[in-house]
């Protein structure tokens, strides 16, 4: 049986992309698989009794070492803010390439806590900061210092001791450019080093609470139970910064989606599933349900989606138990077709993620195909013709070409970079100032303009010649030729319409990171949790590949 890849016209709609869930392809899961045989060490731990100071953690293998350098700082409650406009944080981190020298640590101490206004060097790979979830952090310290384990019910509501508010990489603030490290085998997967930073920060948070509790009451203090540690992750507050990323990296977006779609296609093409494979699928599905029931959010938008997902999953399980036999040929194809016909997008994508769980041999090779070389496709093919360009637009952008941008509601928003923090923002162009400085993220509108412009051009006209008088459309001409080769490179939706939910774009990216418990705080930012349920560094030599569902037991 030959199953077709899902059609980008339907799949690449924002509401669909905003329904994606973590899967075996997720970067935090592939990071742990890659680094499971690396040696983990806590190299330095110099905190005072209140937990302020510095620490270094590392992963090493042969002659390679990556070191997380942590700086824990004292800040007042008033100074603590998750927003990107904050200037102080409870802790600041960088991932250093190699073993930091004394001079490196001194240099980093002066710069890392300053984050965006500090300067890093080519020896640093990623940069981040995090704030305590004060209520949880204080409760854990207090309980441990008195010889008690913390209230796990309270912990499970939040899921972490610290949450990061940004993780930077790829040359920002002087960090190493990607070309310096891209050929390293162990990081040949997107965001590997960002995942490493977050994972090691998680361990730092456990060490810090134990340290403070011990100093608070040396006679009675105990250490945080390892099972409780495993059930805690790292939180993350994510704003609009992530949204332009997926528009600005079309080939990367394609490769992420293509990996997921290829896995789905291959799994649907499996004629007979073994008993063991079916058991893994069912076990993960059942264990994952707590992921949905423990999903706490005040967001009406998300609660509506969770409610629908819960109902759909109940329907799905009923179907599996009562109307479905795994003795069927092509069982996963039948499940997928049933899902398409009977449940909503949240549930379809949830089932797709679950279907990957039994299939290491299908999924794991795909994790190495999720990086991209955007520069290789930068040059516009000037010798192609207008006719070819028109065919590409009609084939790849047919949904977008239906949008009427003369209507006010389809043209309502504009994306811009704030002068204060150099961060992306989105605003109503009819109510706010600044649309004259609009960023080139209105791809649908500009593609439509390109299509209308070339309508009057000769079919045989070469693109190079066309551009002589139409350089205002150059950026979308480039994209069209990229989209020709990469079918999932473009969001098939309007990124400036009145119906835009920017968090759909964030959710797409975060699902590939492996985040769970998406908690929208508005239509423009959300909180998530990463590594909840993950093995601790001491567990890495041997751990359950389906750990993501462990946190829920």
């Amino acid at each position, binding site marked *: 049986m030959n199953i077709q890849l899902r059609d980008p016209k339907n799949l690449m709609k924002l509401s669909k992309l905003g329904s994606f869930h973590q899967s075996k392809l997720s970067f935090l899961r592939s990071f742990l698989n890659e680094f499971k045989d690396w040696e983990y060490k806590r190299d330095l731990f110099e905190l005072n009794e209140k937990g302020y100071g510095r620490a270094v953690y590392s992963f090493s293998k042969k002659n390679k070492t990556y070191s997380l350098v942590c700086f824990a700082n004292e800040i007042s409650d008033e100074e603590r803010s998750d927003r990107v406009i904050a200037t102080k944080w409870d802790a600041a981190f960088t991932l250093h390439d190699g073993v930091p020298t004394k001079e490196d640590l001194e240099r980093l101490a002066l710069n890392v806590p300053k984050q965006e206004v500090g300067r890093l*060097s*080519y020896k640093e790979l990623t940069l981040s900061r995090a704030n305590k979830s004060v209520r949880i952090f204080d409760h854990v310290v207090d309980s441990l210092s008195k010889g008690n384990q913390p209230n796990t019910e309270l912990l499970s509501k939040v899921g972490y001791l610290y949450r990061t508010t940004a993780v930077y990489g790829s040359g920002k603030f002087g960090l190493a450019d990607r070309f310096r490290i891209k050929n390293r085998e162990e990081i040949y997967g997107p965001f590997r080093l960002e995942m490493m930073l977050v994972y090691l920060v998680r361990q730092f948070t456990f060490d810090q609470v134990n340290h403070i509790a011990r100093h608070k009451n040396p006679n009675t203090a105990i250490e945080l139970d390892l099972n409780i540690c495993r059930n805690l992750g790292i939180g993350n507050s994510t704003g609009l910064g992530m949204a332009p990323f997926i528009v600005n990296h079309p080939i990367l977006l394609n490769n992420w989606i293509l990996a997921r779609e290829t896995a789905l296609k291959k799994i649907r093409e499996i004629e007979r599933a073994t008993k063991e494979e079916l058991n893994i699928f069912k076990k993960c599905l059942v264990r994952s349900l707590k992921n949905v029931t423990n999903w706490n959010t005040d967001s009406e938008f998300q609660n509506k989606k969770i409610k629908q997902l819960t109902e759909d999953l109940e329907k799905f399980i009923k179907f599996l138990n009562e109307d479905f036999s795994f003795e069927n040929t092509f069982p996963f194809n039948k499940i997928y077709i049933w899902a398409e016909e009977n449940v909503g997008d949240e549930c379809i994508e949830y089932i797709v993620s679950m279907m990957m769980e039994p299939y290491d041999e299908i999924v794991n090779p795909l994790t190495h195909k999720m990086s991209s070389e955007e520069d290789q496709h930068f*040059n516009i093919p000037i010798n192609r013709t207008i006719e070819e360009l028109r065919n590409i637009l009609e084939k790849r952008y047919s949904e977008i070409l239906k949008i009427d941008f003369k209507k006010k509601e389809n043209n309502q928003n504009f994306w811009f970079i704030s002068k204060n923090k150099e961060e992306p923002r989105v605003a109503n162009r009819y109510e706010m100032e600044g649309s004259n400085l609009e960023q080139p993220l209105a791809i649908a509108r500009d593609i439509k303009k390109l299509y209308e412009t070339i309508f009057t051009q000769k079919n045989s006209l070469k693109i190079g010649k066309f551009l002589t008088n139409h350089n205002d459309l*150059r950026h*979308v*001409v*480039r994209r069209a030729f990229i989209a020709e080769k990469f079918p999932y490179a473009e969001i098939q939706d309007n990124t400036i319409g009145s119906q835009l939910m920017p968090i759909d774009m964030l959710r797409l990216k975060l699902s590939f990171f492996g985040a769970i418990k998406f908690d929208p705080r508005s239509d423009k930012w959300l909180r998530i949790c990463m590594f909840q349920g993950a093995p601790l560094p001491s567990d890495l030599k041997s751990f359950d590949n389906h750990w993501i569902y462990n946190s829920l037991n």
Partner: protein
Amino acid sequence: MISFSEIETTVKRATRSAGFPWGISEEVGKNIRLLEMFGLPGVKNINQYFKIYNVEKFEDINAFSRSNISKKHYCPIKAGVNFFDQSSTISDLGQLEINNLAFPLLFIPFVSRTSELIGKRIFLKMDNKEFLFNFNQSIYSNYLSGDIVERSEKINLQFLENKNSFSETEWSELYKISENTFVEESDELKEKAAGAGLTDND
């Protein structure tokens, strides 16, 4: 140290702010990154260029010919974009001359990328400075000062045909040495070690 990624992003934004369309701004961001990676003073030159861009009106070259002469100085960005876009027809000219190009170093990366696009080396002589562009893999030059170059009176540009840099004799000699890694085939080896049969008529 400023990373190449920061250079590209900042130059892209600055170019846009100078009034160029986004698509050209993307090109200029990539170009300055390229210059800096090749050790040429991209940031210095683009910075100086933006200082006078709105004061001094530069000329455009919309269609390149063998001889491009202007009383006013040509804009290196517009000239560069058009050079790249028209490269397939320009390369048929074999060589060309540009008189009066402002900030000629900003034109250089367009030539380097064109060398890759058309698959030919390009030799460029800018007053007394020489550049050889090798398919955008490297730039060989006698210009090492790292200074701002505000004007070039005369640029000669030559598209080099793809030909060997060595004689047939030199190649034969080298090939002969390489043959020492081959095994002389006996009849038995011919029969047993080859994948196909002894005759193709089976």
